[in-house]
């Protein structure tokens, strides 16, 4: 006994608004009793319809790594932010660069981070990133001292509205360029000598 489309949308909207975290399609399916449970495909279809119906409104449906959630429209952010006394936190360059390094080069050790940035990484930064649940230790490198290997988390993706790391623009595009340069440099030096 399938639920009518409009009722399905209503239930999904209500559940997504009632819960203060992203919900996976699987978890949304759990809302329904077995005999009425829509197939994942139908759920996704309904979510897409809800998404469409948010055009021009003060809220939007966002799909991130952990699932779907309603968030306020970005256009309303300057006003909504006034609800809170403190302005949103600003992150230091060191923190964002460390986060970027972990995001783009994971899994990495603290030593890797330090060698790429050319300066030591403060424990405070690693602690902040871990406290925010943006990075976590995913293992240990099998070298002397067994340093921890860090990687980003689902919460990191959720926080920045990302479905997966692929959604971050690539940064290595010039790596091939470097290879070209190296060979060019060598041949140059060769001719110079």
């Amino acid at each position, binding site marked *: 006994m399938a639920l009518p489309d409009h009722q399905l949308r209503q239930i999904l909207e*209500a559940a997504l*608004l*009632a*819960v*203060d*975290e992203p919900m996976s399609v699987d978890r949304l399916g759990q809302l329904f009793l077995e005999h009425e449970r829509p197939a994942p495909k139908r759920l996704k279809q309904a979510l897409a319809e809800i998404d469409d119906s948010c055009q021009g409104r003060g*809220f*939007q449906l*966002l799909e991130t790594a952990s699932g779907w*959630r*309603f*968030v*306020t*429209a*970005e256009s309303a*952010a300057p006003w*909504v*932010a006034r609800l809170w006394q403190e302005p*949103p936190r600003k*992150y230091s*360059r*060191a923190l*964002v*660069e460390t*986060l*970027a*390094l972990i*995001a*783009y*080069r994971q899994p990495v050790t603290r030593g890797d981070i330090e060698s*790429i*940035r*050319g*300066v030591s990484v403060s424990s405070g930064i690693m602690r902040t990133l871990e406290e925010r649940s943006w990075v976590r230790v995913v293992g240990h490198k099998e070298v002397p001292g067994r340093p921890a290997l860090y990687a980003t988390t689902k919460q990191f993706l*959720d*926080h*920045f*509205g*990302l479905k997966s790391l692929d959604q*971050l*623009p690539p*940064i*290595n*595009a*010039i790596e091939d*360029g*470097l290879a070209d*340069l*190296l060979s060019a*440099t*060598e041949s140059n*030096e*060769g001719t*110079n*000598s």
Partner: protein
Amino acid sequence: MAQLTQVELPLVKIAGRPVEQLPEDLYIPPEALEVFMDAFEGPLDFLLYLIRRQNIDILKVDVARLTEQYVAYVDAMRLLKLELAADYLVMAALLAEIKSRALLPVQASDDDEEIDDPRTELLRRLQEYEQIQKGAEHIRQRPELGRDFFAAQIQAPEAGPRPVTDLPLSELLAAMADVMRRASFTDSHQVKYEPLSTRARMGDVLARLQPGEFVSFSDLLSQAESRAGVVVTFLATLELIKEGLLEIVQTQIYGPIQIGLRDGTA
């Protein structure tokens, strides 16, 4: 060649005015230089700044010129006796080495060509760090929860009563059998069982009665739905009286028999 997005220059403010470029031949107040250098994340960051200032690709950097600029700043810092992180001095030494090598003829033996070339290594590091800075910029520009969008949460109905697993009758009976088996081991009680219907009716009768209130016995009986019911109710009542739970009162001979809960305080 992929295009390089120009990353925002570190902004240094002196006396409220942004300083983007230090006049090279002018006197620099020591504090200003210190603040300026503080804006960098380390020697690599500073080198990237010097490269960007020339608005050229890292890969086309004139290392000799870069070295001169870098060393000039480091020397200025040392001259002014300002504290400078050791990393900066290490980098200065590396740059000096690169520069001196460039002046020497290239060694003939090229078994281990590129690995040992400090210039290549430096460019590789600069490029890698620049990529990370680009990555940092991508992250910075992402809309962020709590800044660009906020989680929506509204009031919802509360949870209903907690569901329970089905307790099947068989489980209830198995439990009873267990209890009885254990009780027969202890053996101290001789448990006697009235027919269930009597037991159940005893409960019904008690439930019907309010403390301090009497009902007529016939009223109780009339609750019974059948002849058998009357008998059961009668038996239940007798049992309750025997157990001292009920009080039976008759105010006159042949008068109605009144039944009530036995007063606990009596």
